[in-house]
């Protein structure tokens, strides 16, 4: 869908410094790192089972955190 701003501006998400991040930002950062590790392992034909489980666990933590933050709004 060419509705994304990615069409208008080059997309780039450089890794940010963790200092000063909120809990949600840190968790999102961890998720990004896990995702990249998972994709690299997948590309290299390595066993991805462990990373996949970690990813699912991190995703569940993120969902729980978002629910918690939503509850505070």
């Amino acid at each position, binding site marked *: *869908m*060419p*509705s*994304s*701003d*990615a*069409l*208008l*501006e*080059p*997309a*780039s*998400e*450089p*890794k940010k410094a963790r200092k000063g991040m909120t809990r949600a930002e840190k968790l999102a950062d961890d*998720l*990004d790192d896990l*995702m*990249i590790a*998972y*994709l*690299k392992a*997948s*590309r*290299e*034909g*390595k*066993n991805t089972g462990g990373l996949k489980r970690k*990813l699912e666990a991190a*995703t569940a933590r*993120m*969902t729980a955190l*978002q629910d918690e933050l*939503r509850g505070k709004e």
Partner: protein
Amino acid sequence: MRALSRGAWQRSHHSARRSPNLRVPLSTAAPHAPFPDLAAAVDARTCERLRRDGYAVVDGAFGETWCHLLRDDIITLAERRLLGRNATHLVRGGTTSLLEKANIFETELGAHEAARAAAPRLDELYRDAALRDRLRACVGGPLRSQSLKVQLNHGGGGCFPLHFDGDPALDDMVVTAVLYLNPEWRESDGGHLQLVPFPEAPVDIAPKFDRLVLFSSHSTLHRTLPSSQVRLCLTLWFYRTRPGGGAAPADDAAVEKRLAARYAYRDTWARSIAESHAPGPALDAALAAHAADTLKIEKLLAARGVDVAALGADAP
């Protein structure tokens, strides 16, 4: 009329199948794999389906080797953090809010030089005109340019709301082509492409590895259903002139059909917006905009003599 049809959205073969236990990066294993014959992949029956039904599915169009090479390139882009979070600028009442999709990361190759440099196979596909030339013969008329976007869905329910690609009032996009790059996809993973060839019933298409889906950009309502697992794909859009190059030829019947589809699927549309974005003020604004647009569309259709009651909700 323009604002309505646009809604409130200002958006802005070689068999190299790798054993799970014995795989090497294809970027090193097959550096000179010949580019797939995409013209041959779109045969006469595919063209006929695209013209008749508005969509067509081609399995095996790229071949496993090239699909792995393209997938590897997307992974490289993720690794180098060259993918950005999908976000929509929602303009309403003079204010703009940023509506981010949960778990969707992507980049548009034509606008991203660093991505093209880091992903040579994607760049080759972006520059190759064979598929475009074949589709030109398929749909008639000129197809002078294309754009390419890659997408990484992190899973965890990542999805897209119902939408049409492009806007006939603003661009002359003709055909959308989506290639799926998920070698380990299973039915339970979800992430199907749901096409709504209105007034026909929706069709769910599995995002299987090396599956190419072609559809009419302006007239096919579609969405991505929630994916529980990591999901990769790329999309090519083909234009009469160039991206953002101007309005498509006026077609009042097509405009009315878009409005009718949007009205008929208004409830599903709203649910899909809610599913695709994290809760918050931007989502609330998007849902309010959708509701307001739905009312305007209802009035417009009624003024054109369309029996809106017959369209019901989520027809057929």
